[in-house]
């Protein structure tokens, strides 16, 4: 459903009531289902949003690079208000969550295609192109050039394995043909056995001590084994899903892996399929990476001709596995594995109640593994070089390497792959950061650390990370950093559970209140209480972590907050004078008598 709606949107620029009429008849699904799904995703529009839909990435790094001024410049140039559609229905300009171009921002999406390195000149040219109604295909190609910016490569990014090498190595782990054949048969019949190639691959992954790279760090072999051992009902198959919904603000390493090492990632998925006995695979690619779709489909097509995907892979009878790509449509929460599966099934991306877990009841109720892009790439190398080789890299508790997406205040933003155990200080040195005040590791749902902690290491035993590494120098206001992240969570809350739906909005209002100068110690206590509630009552990780950026910055950068504690006693957020602004606008008055002086701050 999501894929159909996305294609309708690409063809018509929006999902019109008439289009829904047709879908209703064609798909035999109720209108409520279509509108319910379309309404969930930021990039699907139930109202016309113009033929050119321009969305400015609004991560803190874009802000630091001046995206607000550029947005205003474009809006002024096009004579439109942010968030609204031009009267002729030509164009709309709005914000969106981080688009994963933090190392080459500020960035925007035009009809879901990414443009980075925005400058005033580039913005003026975009305004011209829109005004002259130039089709997107005729826009300058250099606008759409996305750089990989690989600054430090290690085993993953420097790998030059040939397509199929890892699979052949995995296949070679089978002791003999007879055992392999019996193993393939048991796989098809949904009866896992401990014999032959697939189980041996699982052993290597186990020996490698590979843990998930999406942030949670779950042991990959345990997940795979649980999926492999899950019973299949009649007509079911096992599913391998690659989570390429890289939505955490500040993360962009999957974008580069899928650009540079697509074969390695897909090979890893195929190794996983071989190990767990899966016959169907998906890559869930975030909508912001729409521009990667054709290239990735081409890699899949080539691998089919090379007999590395499809039926009887490498000539192994029964080794059937193929992959299709699903594009997301602008919903951070779909990075949560059960929400991702809901989205794959064409539903609203709401996290499921667990248990049961996806390894037993995943896509269409079938045993499913969902792993990060980087995890699959690592799995391919493990199949080729063995688990012991991999386990020797990194630290005792964190085997292998980690790819960091470095952005913010540094001389050389980009992609850095390190063995686990690297210190924050080392990374800062390598990327040419100076005068650093703070680093946000793993994005807003991760941790914000201060200089005293820069000798801490990247690893599951200390600072686990999904890959974001955002640097703030001493010129930055850490309160505004936290406020940007709070707005992000509020925007991305799926709305399913009460605490997260309402709580993230309340938190946003509180931060905006502090921003306006109406903050008092009372509001601190309120933030603390909200955090407790979100931690204990929320349905999924989004709500659990939504208060992290605020708590971390309060603990470490208290002066940034104290500056805003302008009030000793409770002060309402409601500003009577501000409330009269509409009346002033309507009556054309702005004299002193049309204003109310308020006792406390908050006046504009």
């Amino acid at each position: 459903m999501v894929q159909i709606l996305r294609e309708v949107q690409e063809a018509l620029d929006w999902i019109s009531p008439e289009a829904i009429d047709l879908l209703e008849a064609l798909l035999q699904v109720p209108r409520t289902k279509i509108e319910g799904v379309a309404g969930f995703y930021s990039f699907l529009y139930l109202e016309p949003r113009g033929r050119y839909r321009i969305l400015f990435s609004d991560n803190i790094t874009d802000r630091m690079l001046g995206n607000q001024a550029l947005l205003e410049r474009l809006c002024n140039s096009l004579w439109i208000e942010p968030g609204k559609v031009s009267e002729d229905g030509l164009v709309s300009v709005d914000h969106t969550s981080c688009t994963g171009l933090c190392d080459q921002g500020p960035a925007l999406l035009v009809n879901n295609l990414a443009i980075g390195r925005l400058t005033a000149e580039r913005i003026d040219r975009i305004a011209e192109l829109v005004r002259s109604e130039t089709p997107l295909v005729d826009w300058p190609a250099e606008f759409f050039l996305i750089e990989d910016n690989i600054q430090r490569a290690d085993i993953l990014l420097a790998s030059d394995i040939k397509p199929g090498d890892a699979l052949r190595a995995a296949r070679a782990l089978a002791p003999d043909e007879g055992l392999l054949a019996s193993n393939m048969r048991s796989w098809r019949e949904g009866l896992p056995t401990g014999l032959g190639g697939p189980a041996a691959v699982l052993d290597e992954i186990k020996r490698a001590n590979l843990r998930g790279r999406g942030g949670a760090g779950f042991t990959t072999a345990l997940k795979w084994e649980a999926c492999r051992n899950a019973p299949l009902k009649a007509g079911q198959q096992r599913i391998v899903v690659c989570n390429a919904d890289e939505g955490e603000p500040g993360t962009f390493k999957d974008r580069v892996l899928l650009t540079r090492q697509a074969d390695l990632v897909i090979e890893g998925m195929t190794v996983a399929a071989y190990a767990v006995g899966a016959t169907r695979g998906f890559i869930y690619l975030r909508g912001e990476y729409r521009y990667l779709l054709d290239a990735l489909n081409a890699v899949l097509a080539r691998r089919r001709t090379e007999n590395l995907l499809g039926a009887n892979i490498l000539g192994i009878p029964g080794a059937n596995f193929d992959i299709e790509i699903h594009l997301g449509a602008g919903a951070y929460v779909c990075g949560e594995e059960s929400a991702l599966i809901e989205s794959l099934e064409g539903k609203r991306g709401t996290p499921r109640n667990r248990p049961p877990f996806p390894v037993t009841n995943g896509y269409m109720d079938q045993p499913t593994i969902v792993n990060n892009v980087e995890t699959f790439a690592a799995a391919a190398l493990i199949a080729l070089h063995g688990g012991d080789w991999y386990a020797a890299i990194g630290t005792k508790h964190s085997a292998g390497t980690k790819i960091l997406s470095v952005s913010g205040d540094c001389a050389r933003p980009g992609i850095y792959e390190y063995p686990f155990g690297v210190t924050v200080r080392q990374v800062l040195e390598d990327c040419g950061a100076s005068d650093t005040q703070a680093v946000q590791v793993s994005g807003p749902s991760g941790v914000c650390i201060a200089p005293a902690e820069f000798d801490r290491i990247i690893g599951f035993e200390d600072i686990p990370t999904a890959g974001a590494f955002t640097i703030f120098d001493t010129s930055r206001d850490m309160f505004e950093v936290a406020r940007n992240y709070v707005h992000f969570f509020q925007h991305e809350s799926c709305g399913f559970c009460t605490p997260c739906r309402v709580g993230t909005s309340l938190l946003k209002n509180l931060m905006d209140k502090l921003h306006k100068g109406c903050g008092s110690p009372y509001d601190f206590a309120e933030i603390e209480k909200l955090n407790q509630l979100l931690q204990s009552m929320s349905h999924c990780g989004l709500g659990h972590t939504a208060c992290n950026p605020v708590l971390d910055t309060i603990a470490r950068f208290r002066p940034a907050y104290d500056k805003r504690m302008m009030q000793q006693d409770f002060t309402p957020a409601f500003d009577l004078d501000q409330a009269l602004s509409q009346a002033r606008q309507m009556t054309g008055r702005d004299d002193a008598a049309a204003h109310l002086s308020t006792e406390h701050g908050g006046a504009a």
Partner: protein
Amino acid sequence: MSQTFSLDGQSIAFEPGQTILQAAEAAGVFIPHLCYHPEFKPHGSCKLCTVKANGRQTASCTMRAVPGMVVESNTEEINAERRALTQMLFVEGNHFCPSCEKSGNCQLQATAYHLGMMSPHYDHFFPNRAVDASHPEVLLDFNRCILCSLCVRASRDVDGKNVFALSGRGIKTHLIVNAKSGRLTDTDFTLDDKAAQVCPVGVILKKRQGFAVPIGERKYDKAPISAMTEQNKLTEEG
């Protein structure tokens, strides 16, 4: 022989497959809830029924009971959090109890009383939500919707009509009806639908029937929600 778990120190018997909430209800122990309804698949969205099971907070409507499990529910800590959730539901929508036809029969209001909610605490959002008075027999007042999705489930699973669904995301999540016009009158909804009977608050109201039972003599005016059995709760006049 049935198995047991401990709920606030009391031993509760349960059948395999039963959730904590179901077992507690069956034993006559009240756990506050709004989106749960015994006739529908548990949903777990309102989070009012959150308990501490073996020290971990979880929605008791979706968590299956396990033998020997130690569950805390009626504690000051958990009730304070439930109270905060109830306050959130009040400020998120527009709930003006004194003028609401559902007052006294409303589960949100009754739950607020049960939890000792004395004020909304948070700043009101005052969302702008239009009412839908298009249907000849039924009024939809979206101002009071708490997104429990009981009407969605009832219409889909019992009536087979899919009249209702949730659309939007986050704080913009809202109830929609199954018509191109977006109006209830253009759907096949009738007053006999199960979906017309399940709203815990005052969104789906029968027209031309105002205050037939005076406020003060209604279901939760007579007994608190904690004293109601599920069956009592389901019948309008209790």
